[in-house]
């Protein structure tokens, strides 16, 4: 790693000021993506601003018909949370399938979504549930949040503070993992809830996205058979060593049907 400075702010305001206080400063949450990137010398921040000492940043609470999860909540905490497993079991299952145990013990919700890794699991969950991302200055609907490959709607100095997940009637997430990295080659989150019927895909494109024609078909009948006539176009999907766009397009259909089956089971 190259050298950098390290700050451990005690409040979000302090964190924002630190982030703005110099060139190329980066936020550090769980570090499970950032630190490997730095170790490979693929990024050279001048300073890391560690958010983990800010109080109240890693809480999970129930508010009316939403579950609110603090940005610094670790994947393992979401997976094990009685509140989440009770209200949105599909989200708990998604969190429990990210990376591996050790990664889940460090990695955080906010860190994951702010990074917008095309193969991360959470973006599918946020889009698939119609979540809202709360930051230090505003609320951003998930539909507007993931804008590109490793790009989000966040301003450079903006900090994700929490995510509001509407509680669906039913939902499920099914992923097909890259056998080596265990990231999603494709993952599909489906839900039927306050945000309507949603089908969100991760791993297959430059960023997570929804499948409107799948959603419309499911609005008629929330059953795997509704998807049978539909196919996904490989245009614009990722092709890499492990999966072609064509294969990913096919997998999305398979995973969507399986997710629906799981959601109604």
């Amino acid at each position, binding site marked *: 790693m190259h050298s950098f400075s390290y700050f451990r702010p005690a409040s979000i305001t302090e964190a924002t000021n630190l982030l703005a206080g110099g060139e190329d400063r980066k936020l550090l949450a769980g570090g499970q993506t950032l630190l490997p990137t730095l170790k490979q010398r693929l990024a050279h921040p001048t300073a890391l601003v560690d958010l983990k000492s800010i109080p109240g940043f890693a809480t999970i609470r129930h508010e009316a018909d939403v579950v609110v999860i603090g940005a610094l909540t670790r994947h393992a905490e979401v997976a094990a949370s009685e509140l989440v497993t009770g209200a949105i079991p599909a989200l708990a299952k998604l969190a429990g399938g990210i990376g591996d145990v050790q990664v889940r013990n460090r990695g955080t919700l906010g860190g994951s979504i702010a990074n917008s890794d095309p193969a991360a699991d959470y973006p599918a969950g946020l889009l698939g549930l119609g979540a809202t991302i709360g930051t230090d200055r505003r609320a951003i609907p998930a539909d507007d949040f993931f804008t590109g490959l490793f790009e989000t709607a966040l301003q450079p100095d903006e900090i994700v503070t929490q995510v509001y997940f509407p509680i669906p009637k039913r939902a499920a997430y099914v992923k097909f993992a890259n056998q080596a990295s265990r990231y999603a080659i494709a993952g599909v989150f489906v839900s039927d809830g306050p945000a309507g019927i949603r089908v969100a895909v991760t791993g297959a494109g430059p960023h997570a996205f929804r499948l409107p024609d799948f959603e419309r078909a499911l609005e008629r009948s929330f059953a795997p058979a509704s998807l*049978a006539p539909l196919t996904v176009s490989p245009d614009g999907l990722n092709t890499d060593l*492990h999966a072609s766009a064509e294969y990913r397009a096919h997998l999305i259909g*398979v995973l969507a049907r399986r997710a629906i089956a799981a959601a109604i089971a």
Partner: protein
Amino acid sequence: MTDDGIGAHLLRKEDKRFLTGRGNYVHDITRPNQLYAVFARSPYAHADLLAVDISGAAEAPGVVGVFTGEDLKTDGIGGLPCGWGVNNKDGSPMKEPPHPALAIGKLRHVGDPIAMVVAETLKEARDAAELVTYDVTQLPAVTGVADAVKPGAPRLFDDVPGNLCTDWECGDKAKTDAAFATAYHIAKLDLVNNRLVGNPMEPRAALGEYDPSTGDYTLHTTSQFPHVVRLLMGLFVLNVPQHKIRVVAPDVGGGFGVKQFHYAEEALVTWAAGRLAQPVKWVSDRGEGFLSDAHARDHVTHAELALDRDGKFLGLRVSTLANMGAYLSTFGPNIPTNLYGLLLAGVYTTPAIHCAVKCIFTNTLPVDAYRGAGRPEATFVLERIVDVAAREMGIDRVEIRRRNFIPADAFPYQTPVMMAYDSGDHGATLKKALDIADWAGFAERRREAAARGKLRGIGLVTYIEACGLAPSRIAGQLGARAGLYESANIRVHPTGDITVFTGSHSHGQGHETAFAQIVSSLLGVSTEKIEIVHGDTAKIPFGLGTYGSRSASVGGSAIAKAVGKVIDKGKKIAAHMLEAAEHDIEFAAGTFKVAGTDRTKSFADVVLAAYIPHDYPLETLEPGMEENAFYDPVNFTFPGGCHVAEVEIDPETGITQLLAYTAVDDVGTVINPMIVEGQIHGGVAQGVGQALLENCVYDPQSGQLLTGSFMDYCMPRADDLPNIVVATEVTTCRTNPLGVKGCGEVGTIGSPATVINAVVDALAGYGVTHVDMPASPEKIWRIIRAAAPHAAAE
């Protein structure tokens, strides 16, 4: 007699240090005043190296030295030697271009080392290595063997036309052609044996030291054979006499062949330690390991099997292009030739075999031995084409094998490709494996899986391999440039405690336990009183090291031979003490006895007399009790067995799950059943990895390595594998004193073909006859889709 000798399920003596974090790996060793080496490596697959500019790096903070290939040349440092010369079929020698430790004039693969930066801290060395710059003219690269032999392909060496290292053959071509002319059926198969990276969990590391007051060099290195490193490094690279070099391989975190080569880095840190008169340490990280460890496999093969009307094999012909990479690694050309072609008889009576192998240079990492080394490739060819033939002729896969087995009463058996098998009972291993795997019940399991929408398949392999490398005389005829014996020294202390010094290094195989069991059985001494020392040229007389499943059969036999000398000397002493004739002394269960009497002396008493020779035949016998032995085997050993795998394929995603694996192996005498079982488990996992998960891929245009980390190179995880069921079916080896055959590689040799045979069986309904490794999900999905377009589109 002790109960912890040969055959005992003895828990390992070496475990405690590993379980408590007290293992001592090279990375764990730190010396005062230690410097750190980092290598600047080629980002290009193929380029003329016009100039290297080290000025920026040399001036960077903390940098003590920056060295290039020119510096090595100036200092008279040689290139890395190849330890095995394989002749062309016309008898002429192979092409053996130089392998500079740091590149000079040309870069031939991504990762080719250009400069070594030595600095006071690792970070300073890394920072400075980024400042090494170079002028290059990029050249077109070629990474695959099929492309490298095409006319007009990029050429790696001016004096190696067609990138052809050697054009080798074995067997009788005319006889094989004649056999094919009479065939009722000819099965044909084209296959690729995928390129692998061995990836022991401990990355390679080396720590060089030099004492200017004595001129002594010490190298700690992650090696499977420290003596050979000393020999090759001292003689060919550094030009330092053997007695001025000590090489230590302390605890080594897995080898699998990858750590049995002499690598540039270990010579260079040793050399730099001398230049700088400070210890110099290099530790590879995983990414660097992918770019500097020798790779493995990488064959393209066409095979044909001729059969008569009854499915008896009449002839086999195989032609293979084998990737050598950009330079010859220590054993590179031996692997796809002698360790491959000479195994193609398998367990069958095929009377005529011809195998032609072309070893090809490409712009990739050197390719060399990795667990199994040639024999998994041979088994894959043979056991795949046997399955293809069986299906084409409508003969049951088990039955066709039984019809062609070398009968148990036909041993010793001379194959048409040089090997003389000493023993085996392949019908017995087959029967046991089928019973354990419930082969008979498979049809029902397949029906049940089909009801769930899954494709279930079962596959088997009956294989043999040659290990226990090797009789020096034969190895010499095959091109080995060294002997392949092993040494042992038995030091019996005055107290009766025993230290055994062996040239067989242990890096996970449990020698410290199994070798103690051998000595325990032979001397009647508890293993608690026996310590095994390995891995240090300063302590051990000599050693050829650990590879080719040779530790028990060659290293263990050397120990047995040395023990025999101890016993012989003990008999002389006992004869004196008991006032009997030497030839009347018997030794058993730790006691010397005058035959036919109750007059005895314990081993401890005899040892004590040897060290306190107050009443001792000093005029004819030296005091003390320490014996050396060198053991050169009279033949290879031939473990064999039958493996059965059962898989289930999800036709919608193409993913294959291995549900069950049964390995029944004949490894000869079992010294420690727990260790044997563990060795086979691990070997199977590596073979399953090749079959389903692992693949080393280069971009064919740029020559860049696309699978350069565990993010892309898939290592088998716990949830990729089932419980591996292991059993043994022993016929003892007739050619070594212990009756052992070897167990280190059998799992890896049998398993790739076994798993693919199961995968093909699962897909048989689609008309599939072969699937290349790894059977990755998209590959399987495409196969299914191509066969059943309607099914895939649903």
